[in-house]
Each structure stands twice: as C-alpha cells, then as structure tokens.
C-alpha cells in the first residue's frame, strides 16, 4: 500500500510504553507486527537490551528498528573496548539522539523509548521522535496506541513540569509492582480500540538486581 512509487517506509504498528520509578524502570511493548489491515506475526519483540542497565523499545518501521538496534549494539561494543565499561543510560540516550539525527535527511522511521537506570540507580526514561529530538521524562508512550495511553498515564502519574525551579523529580512514587500493573491495564485498554496493538505485551523491568522479563496475553483481534 505504498503512497508513492518511491515510498520506502512501512508502518508496522505497535505501541511502546515506559515508566521510571525511584529505583526501577519498566518498559513494555506489544508483540504484534502488522502492515495495513494484515498481521505479519503475533510474536515479534520490539525491545532490545543495549547495555546492562539500558533497554530500547521501538515502534514504527521494524526494518529501520532492526538496523538501528544493530548499529547501536556495534557502537556499544566499540565504546566498551575504549572505555572498559558499559554505556550508562544517559550516555546511550545522547548517542541514540546523535545516531537518529545523523540520518536527518533520510530518517529512521522509528519512534523510540529508552529506559534504564542512571548512575544514581534511579529510573530514567528518554523519549524520542524520528530524528533524534529527545527528553528525559518520568513516563512515555510511543506508537499507534500512544494517543490512547498517554492521557491515562498523565492522569495516574502526574509528572511535575520540567520547567519548575528547583527541579522536581520526574520519577513516579509508585512501587515496581504497581507500575507493572498500571502498564498491563493501559495495554489492555489500548488493545481494545487500536487495531495494531494486541496479541501479547512484553514487559521488561530493570532494577538494581538486574533485568527481568514477563509476557502477558492480550486480545488477539
């Protein structure tokens, strides 16, 4: 269903959400890969572990997602060889922004959320547009279901404005279990109305003890 003869992108749909807590970060993405009104597969991971405490979730065109993930993973290897340590989350965030802007005039058709722990062990979530504009936030959603999810998160997580002085913490006071439950609820809701979101949601939790993953079933229609 190309819009022009030379249209090289495709929107594979799907939704990604992330929430930052005081000592954890949860990132979730559904596992449905679609094109138009068809489903390519119900079992496709949009989440990529880039570093020990840093996970990337991407919605949009999955061809570009794969290429972007491979690029970042290779650059991370070089960083490790040079610095003798893993990239921290804010470092990876800037690097992702640079990588995206590098292709400003032939962009990666990807809507990214980067989640992890910063050097103080606090949860951090960075949200991006397709060309690398990014911001550190307390929570975010990207993808076809984002419009249905963000208002609910705004209501539940009520982040203080980043313009306030003195700077107020953007991370939510919710506990890890409560945040995961909230994610499950918003995904179930988005699945009801967004045709591109469904099948399963992959939830990744990063905290001081490492990275944990769980899968939850969603409606398949």
């Amino acid at each position, binding site marked *: 269903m190309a819009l022009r003869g030379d249209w090289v992108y495709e929107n594979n749909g799907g939704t990604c959400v992330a929430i930052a807590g005081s000592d954890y970060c949860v990132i979730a993405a559904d596992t449905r890969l679609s094109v138009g009104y068809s489903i390519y597969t119900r079992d496709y991971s949009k989440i990529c572990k880039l570093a020990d405490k840093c996970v990337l979730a991407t919605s949009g065109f999955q061809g570009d997602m794969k290429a972007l993930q*491979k690029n970042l993973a*290779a650059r991370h*290897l*070089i960083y490790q*060889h040079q610095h003798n340590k893993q990239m921290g989350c804010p470092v990876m965030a800037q690097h992702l922004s640079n990588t995206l802007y590098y292709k400003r005039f032939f962009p990666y058709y990807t809507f990214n959320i980067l989640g992890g722990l910063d050097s103080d062990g606090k949860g951090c979530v960075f949200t991006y547009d397709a060309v690398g504009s990014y911001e550190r936030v307390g929570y975010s959603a990207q993808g076809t279901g984002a419009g249905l999810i963000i208002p609910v998160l705004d209501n539940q997580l009520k982040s203080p404005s980043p313009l306030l002085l003195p700077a107020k913490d953007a991370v939510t006071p919710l506990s890890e279990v409560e945040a995961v439950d909230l994610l499950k609820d918003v995904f179930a809701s988005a699945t009801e109305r967004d045709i591109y979101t469904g099948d399963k949601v992959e939830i990744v939790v990063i905290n001081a003890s490492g990275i944990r993953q769980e899968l939850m079933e969603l409606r398949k229609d």
Partner: protein
Amino acid sequence: MFRNQYDTDVTTWSPAGRLFQVEYAMEAVKQGAAAVGLRSTSHVVLATVNTAASDLSSHQRKVFKIDDHIGVAIAGLTADGRVLSRYLRNECINHAFVYESPLPVSRLVVRLADKAQVCTQRSWKRPFGVGLLVAGLDETGAHLYYNCPSGSYFEYQAFAIGSRSQAAKTFLERRFESFNTYSRDELIKDAIFAIKETLQGDKLTSSICTVAIVGQDEAFHMIDQKVIQEIINSMEIKEDAPADQAPLQEDKGSEEAPMDI
C-alpha cells in the same frame, strides 16, 4: 657486512633475496617482553610478562580482548600493537554486523597478515614492529596463531615470543604433545610456568604477569590477579619440597659438602 647497503628502505631487496627492514622489525619483536600462548582442544591461554617503564609507572598492557571469542597478546612496539588491536576489533564487529556470527579466527589472522604485508611493499611505510599471538575459538575449534611483522602467520599448539622466549619454547617443546588433553587449569599452570622460565631467576609475582583465557563456554577474559598468585604460590610449594634429592643443598646455595659423606 653488506647488510648496511640494502637496509635503507623496505622496498630494497638484498642480493641474497632478503628485506632487511622487515627483519629489523622482527628484531623489535624479540626485544619486547615475553608472551606465551598454549592451546588445548577446548581452551587457549595467553600469558605475558608486564614490564613497567619505571617503578613510578603502571605496567604495560600487552593482552587485548578483540571479541568474546578472540584475544591477542603482543610483543614489541606496544603502540603498534594497540593500533592493530583496534583494527582487529573493528573487523570482528563489522563481520558480526553483516553476518550475525563471530568472525572465524583463521579469517581474522589473514586480514591481519595482509595488513602487515602492505607495509612491507610501500616505500612510504614501515613494517609494524609488533608480533601478535592470536588466541581464539570458532566452529572449527581452538586456535593459536602467531602473526609477525613480515606478514606471515603460522598456527601453533604453543608458542613464545619476545625476550628470553627461547627458555619458554624449550619448556613448551617438552610438554606440548599432551596439551590437547590438558584441562583448563593445567593449561593455565603451564602457561605461568612457561612465563616463569623466561624470567630466569627473577621472582615471579602476579603483579608482573597477565594471564588470559578463552574457552568454549568462556568468553575471552583476563584471569584475576589473586587466582594467579594462588597458582604461583602452589607452584613454589611444589618446587621447594620435591620428594627426593637434595633440596637442602640448593637452598643453601653454596658448595658445602653434605655432613654425612
């Protein structure tokens, strides 16, 4: 000799068919501190002697991780070694990016050898002054290669390069036939022993020695200094108390006749 007439640049042959600049580069390898490598069917161990420029400075890094399945130990100009390590890392990353699989060791050493050969055939370049022991594992098993500045490379069961490496080579020549059956720990112990041979009397401590290993279920990594020190200590205990002949005389270190002739 006539050596001096034909050694000005690397693109001049001598009448005997030698490139002296390349041979001089191999001399630089012989001047560097010793490095040894040993291979079994499932593991490869590299060990090096770390020299320090002075008591105030830190020890020279001579072992580099290239990828999870490959590492190198160098002898000679460490700056050249560092540059080559960066090149090898890039090659591994690029291969894995395109083919989603680790670069086979034999392919890597060929690329390294080709890079070295280029410097032996350009008048505006000089050969690399570093020899590399490349240790790696791939689908075909465990491998140990030696790459020299001339651009040639050989596969070895065990090898030693650098200063006083002949002592280590002699030790390895006696033992290498059984290396394939060695366990991981036996391989490490023999590597440390080989390094000890090159020191020829100087005290071996874990601070001047680096040991690294790669195995089938073990990514390339340096072995912790404490573990190395434990192995050295256990080696010394064995030496000080062999069951039979005259240890006492050796300890005294003089020509005294034993009390009971």
